[in-house]
């Protein structure tokens, strides 16, 4: 099933560090958010495969905005 990796802080997307098709593990860095000029890492809460990347550099983000869609087992 699909699970989203969401923005944990508001701000700007600094970068997404995974690509479609990548295998990711729980705790792995998926993206980086620039909130008030400080960078924060967004980690995956699941093991899975990157299905879709929704955010790109400089996108404005609110808390909870989906940044990456994962296909996870279960």
């Amino acid at each position, binding site marked *: 099933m699909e699970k989203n990796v969401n923005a944990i802080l508001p*701000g700007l997307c600094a970068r997404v560090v995974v690509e479609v098709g990548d295998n990711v593990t729980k705790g792995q860095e998926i993206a980086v958010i620039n*909130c*008030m000029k*400080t960078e924060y890492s967004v980690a995956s809460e699941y093991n899975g495969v990157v299905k879709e990347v929704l955010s790109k550099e*400089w996108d*404005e983000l609110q808390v909870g905005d989906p940044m990456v869609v994962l296909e996870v087992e279960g």
Partner: protein
Amino acid sequence: MINRLLIANRGEIVARIIRTCKELGVDTVAVYSEADKHAPYLDQADDAVLIGPANPMQSYLNIETLIQTAQRTGADAVHPGYGFLSERGAFAEAVEQAGLIWVGPSAKVLKAISSKCYCRHIAAGVQVPVIPGTLDPVSDGETVAEYGHEQGWPIFLKLDKGGGGKGIEIINNESEAAEVLQRASRIGQMAFGSGDCYIEQVVHHPRHIEVQFLADKHGNCVCLGERECSVQRRHQKIIEEAPSVVVTDEDRKRLFDRARSIVLKIGYEGAGTIENLRSIDGNYYFMEINARLQVEHPVTEYLTGVDIVKWQLLIASGEEINFSQADVKMNGHAIEARVYAEDPETFVPSPGTITSLSLPETDSQLRIDHALKENGSVPPFYDPLLAKVIAWGTERSEATNRLIEALADFQIEGIKTTIPVNLAILKRPEFLAGNIDTGFIDNILRNT
């Protein structure tokens, strides 16, 4: 004289610049992004223009849009404030090429001094001690390893074009040298367009002492005293004061002479700051030049009575500084606390909406520079600086107490602020004794 000034910035500094413009009879054009459309200073400017979305690349950092806006609104000058494009040679150049007055040192000077190695060469060339290290960038890990081997570890690796506390890496031993150099170069290439790095030796327990100067187009350079900014966190200043408790009259005279020789050698015009480190044994080393109006400039304005923004505008208009070094009198003591929108315990940013705001009353001994209002928003896209609270007193303890009272009266709800951190620092016995260095905050945090 400048008639109409476009202010290419946001936040409290826009309100600050507008205040002086009103006194001088200069019209102002404020610019704003979608995220700042309700900023209180927009009503104070003679004109306010939406320049783009929240993303600063498309608004406050967009040179083309800013130049077009200046031309369209009939501005004849541009003030860049601090941060954003304030020290960007390419912006100064675009302003100059559009036939507008740039409030700051020329594009040529800005481009040259963006290289820290250039500045180190200039300083060394006029016999000003620089922080020991290399004057030129290092080419490979082997050279770095050799240097550390000879001079002792750890050493700092700094980006030639770095800034804002970014691009400083510590190397603890030979085995890290190549890897850290490679990483720093990569970061520099991405963030500043240059991967060049040079070496600086570690100065233990340093104090940050900077000299504010004004230099005009007629060869005059006057220093407006020093500021001590040793209370920092992650290279971000938190408390600034003047005078410094450790700077003697003799030190001050020497620091002024050094600043003047560097400034005149470079051909710098405008207001600026020479940053120095003071070692625990009382030696001062040139660190870098800040080619802009600094956040902490109000401290100096309180101490000297000189309006630095006014002199920026006069100098940019070609006027000559009409007072001498002997005329600069430093009266009493001033301290500034920076209030940031951050959780006071974790320092995680705290953007949001201000639900309630009540500020202490200001007077001739208390100044608050801010762009806050009730129901106003603090966007997550920009610097977390919310306000600067500056207190003056006939002596340091009086200024400190006034600042403590003001911060205790500073009521703001809806977002978290670092006011509790400011208060904790100002009440520490070490601070009251003037016993501070740049590691002060980390020491407090470790011990509480």
